[in-house]
């Protein structure tokens, strides 16, 4: 009876500081987040180059590990204009719905004759289609050069970047290069991961 029990306080830690930190980090990550796109998974080689890839006005030709070639242009209006250009040269026409659907694709890898059926699919099916890649065969049909031409016609300021997978075979790169050179493009960037220069390296 006489024992005075100390009043039990639940241990109360002040969370405010932790919340501050948590939300600071959260803000940082939200700001820096660039989401992974639904493009083909490509693991690029690394280089010691320090030049950052520009964010806009960029045309990316990707070669995945099986040697399939994908093509992507950054801005929506450019994509639509590019589609118009290619439709003109190939004598096909695309409806506004198809154009709108095409404009939200960051990249694609289909021969031109398969493009229309693909754009007519429902959205969830489009993602599941196995894209065969843009034909680049230097001897047979090659459509990559046409796409590059159409894109450059839509926006002459486009920079060209090539993004290849580590294990893509060299002949595939040669085919892509031949396509570019047929358009008189001899200067472009190779997208690589960054890597530290070996010790003792000076610029």
């Amino acid at each position, binding site marked *: 009876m006489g024992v005075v029990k100390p009043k039990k306080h*639940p241990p109360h830690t002040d969370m405010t500081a932790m919340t501050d930190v948590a939300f600071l980090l959260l803000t940082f990550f939200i700001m820096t987040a660039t989401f*992974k796109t639904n493009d083909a998974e490509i693991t690029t*080689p690394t280089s010691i180059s320090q*030049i950052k*890839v520009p964010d806009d006005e960029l045309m990316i030709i990707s070669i995945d590990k099986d040697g399939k070639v994908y093509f992507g242009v950054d801005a929506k209006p450019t994509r639509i204009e590019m589609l118009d250009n290619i439709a003109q040269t190939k004598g096909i026409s695309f409806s506004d719905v198809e154009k709108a659907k095409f404009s939200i694709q960051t990249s694609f890898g289909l021969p031109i004759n398969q493009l229309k059926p693909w754009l007519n699919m429902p959205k969830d099916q489009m993602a599941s289609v196995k894209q065969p890649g843009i034909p680049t065969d230097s001897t047979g049909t090659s459509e990559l050069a046409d796409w590059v031409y159409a894109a450059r016609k839509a926006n002459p300021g486009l920079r060209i970047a090539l993004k290849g997978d580590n294990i893509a075979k060299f002949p595939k*790169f040669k085919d892509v290069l031949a396509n570019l050179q047929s358009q008189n493009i001899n200067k472009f960037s*190779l997208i*690589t991961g960054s890597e530290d220069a070996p010790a003792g390296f000076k610029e």
Partner: protein
Amino acid sequence: MAAIEESGGGGHGKGDGKVRGKKMSTRVDMTPMVDLGFLLITFFMLATTMSKPTAMSVFFPDKQEDKKEEQTEPLKASKVLTLFMGANDDVYYLDGVSADDDNAQASLKTTRHGAELRDVIFASQRRINAANPKDDKGNEAFVVVIKPTDVSSYKNMVDVLDEMAITKSKRYALVDFLSDAEKKVLGDKIKPKN
């Protein structure tokens, strides 16, 4: 956590008439907010790709000028390090020896990408630059000829181009043509495996 019923139900027995406003604790329980915060942090951390890709600029010679090339002086084999990229990240090289030479087969050596290849390039660079004076434009004599073969990968090519930047070899050429002599020297090494 449950900090609600603190000194609840007091006050009545005192009987001094004044009804005081009950002092509510202003403390808000932050735990759920912190939980949510960290959950979102985790999500964004995983969704973010932190290392921004870098770009490597490459220039290729104009294809149309092929015809003029015959007028230029052929490179002396003694000033050239020829790198052949084979399968499985192997690099074969001829250091200052032409593939037409009789001893080409014997002097073809194998190395690996990375530090090993770098040492080979540095050694050859030093040797050739010491033996040959700079040309009248002030360029060093050392020239690297890079020959990717059909069995090499895109990574091999980028790696070698990167080595050029690391070793500061200013003069290099990417040639995808193998002469008959070179094919003979390389033999089975560049045959596809199927």
